């Protein structure tokens, strides 16, 4: 279990406990947190669960490998930053307790 903070683009924050093994995307969807659309349902086949990982966590969470499907899908998302990830590809562990992710202006 990890306590994760999701911050919408308008600044609204949502703090929820997400069981280890679920994805960060699933944690948002299960708790009806707006701003993460997750159209494909976690197949890494769209880019509508795009989040920015908080700077304090970026080293631990890591970035998608170059040439990976996630990197490819992410490259089509709008307003990407160096800290962009697809949240369906971040598997929650107990060590992620306190993780903060922010949402982009919109999912595309």
């Amino acid at each position, binding site marked *: 279990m990890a306590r994760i903070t999701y911050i919408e683009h308008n600044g609204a924050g949502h703090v929820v406990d997400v069981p280890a093994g679920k994805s960060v995307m699933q944690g948002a*969807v299960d708790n009806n947190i707006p701003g993460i*659309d*997750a*159209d*494909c*349902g976690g*197949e*890494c*086949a*769209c880019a*509508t669960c795009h989040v920015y990982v908080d700077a304090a966590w970026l080293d631990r969470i890591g970035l998608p490998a170059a040439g990976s*499907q996630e990197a*490819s*899908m992410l*490259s*089509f998302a*709008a*307003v990407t930053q160096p800290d962009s990830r697809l949240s369906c590809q971040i598997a929650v562990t107990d060590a992620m307790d306190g993780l903060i992710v922010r949402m*982009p*202006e*919109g*999912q*595309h």
Partner: protein
Amino acid sequence: MNAPVHFDPASDALNTPLDRIDVSDPRLFQDDIYHPYFERLRREDPVHYRKDGKYGSFWSVTKFKDIMAVETHPEIYSSAARLGGITITDRPMEFRRASFISMDPPRHDEQRKVVSPIVAPANLNNMSGIIRERVCRVLDGLPRGETFDWVQRVSIELTTLMLTTLFDFPEADRANLTYWSDVATADVNAGGIVDSEEKRLEILREALRTFTAMWHERAAKPPGFDLISMLAHAEATKNLVNDPQEFLGNLTLLIVGGNDTTRNSMSGGLWALCKHPVEYQKLRDNPGLIPSMVPEIIRWQSPIVHMRRTAVADTELGGKQIKAGDKVVMWYISGNRDEDSIDNPNDFIIDRARPRHHLSFGFGVHRCVGNRLAEMQLIILWEEIMKRFPRIELMEEPKRIYSNFIHGISEMKVRIPA
């Protein structure tokens, strides 16, 4: 419609030998009788081989998860125009026009990224005002108490106006855009004006001339925020105009993609509501459901019937051996009714959970670039409809087009009670 009166598609679908079922027959979609054939394939042979069908030999991929597997492996399932591109029709080699939808990574990626900012979230906010203003104008001009064609008066008008904005195209000439869009996708066997690839190209050359002139004009000016200017000024596409075939390919992609699909969801949504009065009442009771109804409309309509790939390596899919060179057809219209991936897929439910989990936009690197713009147009349309017209009546069943690619409605007679 063309079928004899006693013809029963449900029993035909059950009694035709499996290897004779040919879901590529455009009549199935024109007559709206395709469901039982796909139901049988999903149940008995979800990855189905049809040898020597109307559109050659091909694999039909009919289940959601198998379609997703094809979508996410572009290195195995190619979209390349020279191999046949993205439609089941194998055009003669000289008529195969590349565009970024009929290209594989990395070139696809470079060209797509040039145009995608126009439909990104920031620009959607910029466009919402003009879209709403047009929707209001079109709806306020509709007659009361008299029968009219929703397709002409609303669906075509609104989507074509949208295109004029995206291309910064003269509004007065907008009928050309609709015409070129229809010409680009017409099945040569449909009995319409386009009865050969030569005829199609002849008409589309006019589009090419128009847009080439526009290109040179805009290339000479500072970059603007319309599709032609964006293409003319971007590193990856600045020489596109010198390759008329590929330029025309991309033009038709952007015209069809921004037009035909949303047009048919605008018609199909009203049709679905008229056929499902309980859902229509739910909408009247709570217009706040519109944002979740819109993706359900897009699933229900499935505006693109299929997308095709060509295998470039031997592989396995759903237990079947696919060989390099095989034509593989993803039937979105079937995957969108797959009970293993969507709850109660045969029900139209405007407040279903996770309504965006559908295949109508495709998935993977070729996923519809304009998907959020399409949704926004439909949301605004339905918001403004519900403010004005609590009830619109379907006067007769819609007329559908002869196509296994565009799930199109060509005419739909409706009436707004006086």
